[in-house]
């Protein structure tokens, strides 16, 4: 039996742990003497307007291109059945599992000044002096955000499209509507809420972007997140940093209420997925061709940058025309690595794994306990409050945490605290949904058959939840691996993870080592991804047989 009160104790503790640091930031931002006058003068200043303009425009274009490029693919995923569809759909989670710094590294490798893309341009069109030079700037930032979010948009929009019954389009045609009119009058209105919803989400991610903008933005382009970091870390201007965090939270509140609105619209009319016709190469040669070209282009867009990290890690000095070698990997053991990164390779890997596994397991356990209690307690808005991290950035939280407890706790502990907080919403949603899926009847059935207590958990509940728990832990680990900002702020230079190491190697222009370490990192991320999408294995078997 559950002790009375225990069910409320856990959420209460979590709320305190989650909210205190945030309250500290808000307090410092708005309750200081002169806070409001400073705020007003800052809101009227040139830097504020510049950052706001940059953050919103880059986030807007990132969302726009992610959705616009995903729509044609979503059509094929939503309207046709084809071999490998489920496999492709699971692969689309991959970019999301990739740590931000790796994405940046891949982009630099591929689209950078001396990147693969420019070398290909020079080879294909010699003498034309064509080159893409915009990676370090607005275009590059948007490109990288699209790289990050495109697959997620494609997946979500495709799944939604599947739930728009093809019969609605037929009904429209029978009533006399042309295909264009049907698209405008039926499909688009039904798809629009989802377009809006993923659009707002991509906007949110891009608005909060830290790693990408930190590396590619230089001093010219900054998001609030980057500026908070600079004020805190470089200028040691804590008051300014709090104020920026406060402003960012207010802006995020606006975006999040927009998100809640679009989400409600999405839920309003969600139909059932209907069986789809197969895509027939013989009967629809044009359509199949278009789809194959689209698919090929997007796969190249995704995979080439990653593949070239691997290739260049095996080239002399990381150069494309260098000879094949393991030198770059050997350099990871050398002094120059230790000098640039501040720690040796084994410590970095050990720290990273230790931190991320702790965060993954702790988040999953906490979230699971909460999800279990969820059905017995009428919580109402609590779920909403637990989604808070969506509206608080990594940096705000990390910054609040350090103002709250200062140096009294070990940096590693602070990092775990922050990362659990950040991973919580996703992990919690995942586990709660999984629990809801198999319902309470199974537990009731087991109870009527005589199972109780520990037996009930190990014979019914755990086997049913094992897969979801595995995914939850892997997501937690992935979030921890990908986090750069909390580690930079809370680690105080002492805790060095793989993300920090790659960041420092890029910063010190140790490019050969960066690609070698990046390759190891990619392998780790892909392994994690494979755990999350375990179904993948069965599908692979299915397709080879």
């Amino acid at each position, binding site marked *: 039996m559950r002790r009375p009160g225990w069910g409320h104790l856990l959420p209460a503790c979590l709320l305190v742990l989650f909210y205190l640091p945030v309250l500290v930031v808000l307090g410092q931002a708005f309750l200081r003497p002169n806070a409001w006058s400073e705020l007003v003068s800052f809101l009227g200043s040139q830097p504020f307007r510049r950052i706001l303009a940059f953050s919103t425009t880059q986030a807007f274009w990132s969302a726009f291109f992610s959705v616009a490029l995903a729509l044609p693919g979503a059509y094929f995923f939503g309207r046709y059945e084809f071999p490998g569809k489920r496999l492709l759909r699971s692969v689309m989670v991959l970019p999301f599992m990739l740590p931000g710094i790796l994405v940046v590294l891949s982009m630099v490798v591929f689209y950078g000044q001396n990147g693969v893309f420019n070398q290909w341009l020079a080879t294909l069109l010699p003498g034309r002096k064509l080159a893409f030079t915009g990676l370090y700037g607005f275009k590059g930032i948007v490109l990288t955000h699209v790289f990050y979010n495109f697959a997620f948009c494609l997946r979500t929009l495709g799944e939604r499209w599947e739930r728009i*019954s093809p*019969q*609605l389009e*037929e*009904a*429209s*045609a*029978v*009533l*006399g*509507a*042309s295909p264009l*009119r049907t698209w405008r*009058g*039926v499909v688009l*209105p*039904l798809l629009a809420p989802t377009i809006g919803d993923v659009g707002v989400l991509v906007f949110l991610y891009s608005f909060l972007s830290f790693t990408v903008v930190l590396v590619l933005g230089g001093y010219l382009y900054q998001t609030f997140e980057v500026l908070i970091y600079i004020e805190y870390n470089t200028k040691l201007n804590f008051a300014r940093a709090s104020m920026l965090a406060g402003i960012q939270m207010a802006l995020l509140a606006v975006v999040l209420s927009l998100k809640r609105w679009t989400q409600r619209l999405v839920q*309003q*009319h969600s*139909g059932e997925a209907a069986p789809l016709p197969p895509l027939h190469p013989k009967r629809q040669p044009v359509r199949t061709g278009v789809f194959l070209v689209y698919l090929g282009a997007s796969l190249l867009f995704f995979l080439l940058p990653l593949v070239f990290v691997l290739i260049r890690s095996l080239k002399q000095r990381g150069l494309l025309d260098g000879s094949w070698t393991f030198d770059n990997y050997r350099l990871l053991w050398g002094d120059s690595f230790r000098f640039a990164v501040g720690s040796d390779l084994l410590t970095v890997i050990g720290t990273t794994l230790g931190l991320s596994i702790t965060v993954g397991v702790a988040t999953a356990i906490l979230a699971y306990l909460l999800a279990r209690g969820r059905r017995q307690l009428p919580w109402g808005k609590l779920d909403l409050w637990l989604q808070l991290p969506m509206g608080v950035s990594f940096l705000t939280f990390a910054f609040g945490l350090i103002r709250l407890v200062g140096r009294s706790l070990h940096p590693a502990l602070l990092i775990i605290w922050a990362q659990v907080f950040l991973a919580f919403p996703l992990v919690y949603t995942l586990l709660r949904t999984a629990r809801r899926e198999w319902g309470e009847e199974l537990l009731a059935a087991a109870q009527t058959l005589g199972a109780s207590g520990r037996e009930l958990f190990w014979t019914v509940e755990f086997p049913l939840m094992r897969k979801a728990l595995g995914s939850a832990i892997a997501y937690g680990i992935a979030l921890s691996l990908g986090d750069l900002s909390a580690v930079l702020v809370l680690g105080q230079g002492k805790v060095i993870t793989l993300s920090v190491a790659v960041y420092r190697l890029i910063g010190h222009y140790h490019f050969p080592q960066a690609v070698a370490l990046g390759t190891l990192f990619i392998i780790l991320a892909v392994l994690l991804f494979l755990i999350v999408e375990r179904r993948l294995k069965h599908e692979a078997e299915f397709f080879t047989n």
Partner: protein
Amino acid sequence: MKQNFLQIDVAKEYPEFALTANLTVAEGEFFSLVGPSGCGKTTLLRLISGLAVPDRGRIILDGQDLTGVAVAERRIGFVFQDYALFPHLTVKGNIEYGLKVCRWSTAQRERRLRELLALFELETLANRRIQELSGGERQRVALARALAPEPFLLLLDEPFAALDYGLRRRLRRELKALQTQLGFTAIFVTHQQEEALSLSHRLAVMEGGRILQVGSAPEVYSKPCHPFVAKFLGDANLIPCTVEVTGAGLLVTPEAGAAFTLPADGGEVVEPGSYLLMIRPEDVVLAEKEVVYTGELMTVEYLGHGFYAEIKTGADLILKILVEKTTALKAGQTGGVSFRKQALKLIPIN
């Protein structure tokens, strides 16, 4: 009234299934396609509407060949099984959709909308969202939407399938009354024999992608020309028999039963040979004269308005019988049965 209002002669092949159909529908007729699921009735409906394209053949509607005419230009109304109502539009928006698409003027549109809302008693629901409607209300909206642009022909694909029995019967009567009132031509698809028999002027029984028989409901019910039709529409006894032609008429000898003579029927020419004797359970009577079979009552079910029983005759033949409630039946009882001759149908064995 044009007898050849709709002429269909098409074939369509799928990897797992082939459909061939040849039939005509008269103007103002309520025509049903009935058959088990997978018999091709919905496919035929889709071919008529243009949602599917036939491999061969033609469909001619009111003298116009529809081959190559786009779905949107055919002006054929379609009521889908799950209604396919637009979830993002209100009742009014759904009904108006076809009018807007066909560019009716605002005044015309409003007049038509008022008319339909009144006809289907939807006035109070006009601004409701589709999700807020009951099954019966949705059904009415679907019908109103399909009829709004004044189609030449209305196709209904099992429109009552999602509803419970009581509601289905009520809506069936309403649909019939509506069709009589407005006089539109309708093709109605169902797998429920009761629906087809009660609604249609004529019906076609389909099986395995073929049309087995076309005729009025009483005709098809009482004179099935195929064992499948006999069994699908109602309950039937099918007994192998031989037929000889004599001066007095036809001498019918059912398997393991007593021979009897059918008076020479005016029109129908019957060749001697092997047949299936089709007799409905309600046309089998307990009798002491002209007994065809004697046997023992096996199961007896009380149905309220009468009894249903199965009689085991000497051979391994089970006869189904339906008697009025005035005749009390008991299991184990033995006796003789005879057939109502005028209700009997001989189906040739191919």
